[in-house]
């Protein structure tokens, strides 16, 4: 079974440009999460999808960030326009829970975004 995959693995863009990150969760996982780790700091939650619906987007830094999950499958995270402080590693994770039981969140390898 394929794990969580993220594209691209690295991206270097200039300030003001647009970048779109993609996450393909494990097939059948309804929950999809985006996280971000800025250099030297902790991994922070950005948002949570349940299927195609945004369950919680309280961690999104500002309106330059737009996340979508069309059809409840893969998700994209677009940054437009990118700023220097957006540099970091963006992680995606997916999980499937069964009733009240929690199941493990599986992570992708992350996308390293560098804004210059």
């Amino acid at each position, binding site marked *: 079974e394929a*794990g*969580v995959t993220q594209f691209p693995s690295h991206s270097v863009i200039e300030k003001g440009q647009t970048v779109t990150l993609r996450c393909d969760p494990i097939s059948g996982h309804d*929950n999809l*999460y985006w*996280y971000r780790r800025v250099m030297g*700091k*902790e*991994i*922070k*939650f950005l948002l*949570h999808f349940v299927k195609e619906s945004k*369950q*919680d987007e*309280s961690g999104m830094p500002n309106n330059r960030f737009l996340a979508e999950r069309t059809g409840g499958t893969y998700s994209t995270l677009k940054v437009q326009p990118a700023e220097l402080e957006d540099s970091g590693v963006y*992680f995606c*994770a997916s*999980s499937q*829970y069964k009733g*009240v039981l*929690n199941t*493990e*969140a599986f*992570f*992708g*390898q*992350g996308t390293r975004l560098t804004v210059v």
Partner: protein
Amino acid sequence: AQTVTQSQPEMSVQEAETVTLSCTYDTSENNYYLFWYKQPPSRQMILVIRQEAYKQQNATENRFSVNFQKAAKSFSLKISDSQLGDTAMYFCAFMRGYNAGGTSYGKLTFGQGTILTVHP
């Protein structure tokens, strides 16, 4: 809001020895889960071990065990018989329990991470 603190930015250990990584957290919740995740260099993060807060018994997974002190809000990871493949960044993480309410079940709060290097 919950916070997770890992006070050791870097640790090192000799192969076959034992090392303990520290983690403390702060929460007003009574129902929650704690995790240790491992991220090897250039690879994806994987779950090492998890602990349900309602369980008094410390979780164990082969060479990995935790010391969960609920009253002290402490959750340390012990790695026994360290191997070169244990070299990685380790993250401690907190998750609210299902009955804790709120809409974002499954959301993790992470610590800053500890880089562990195992030397031959």
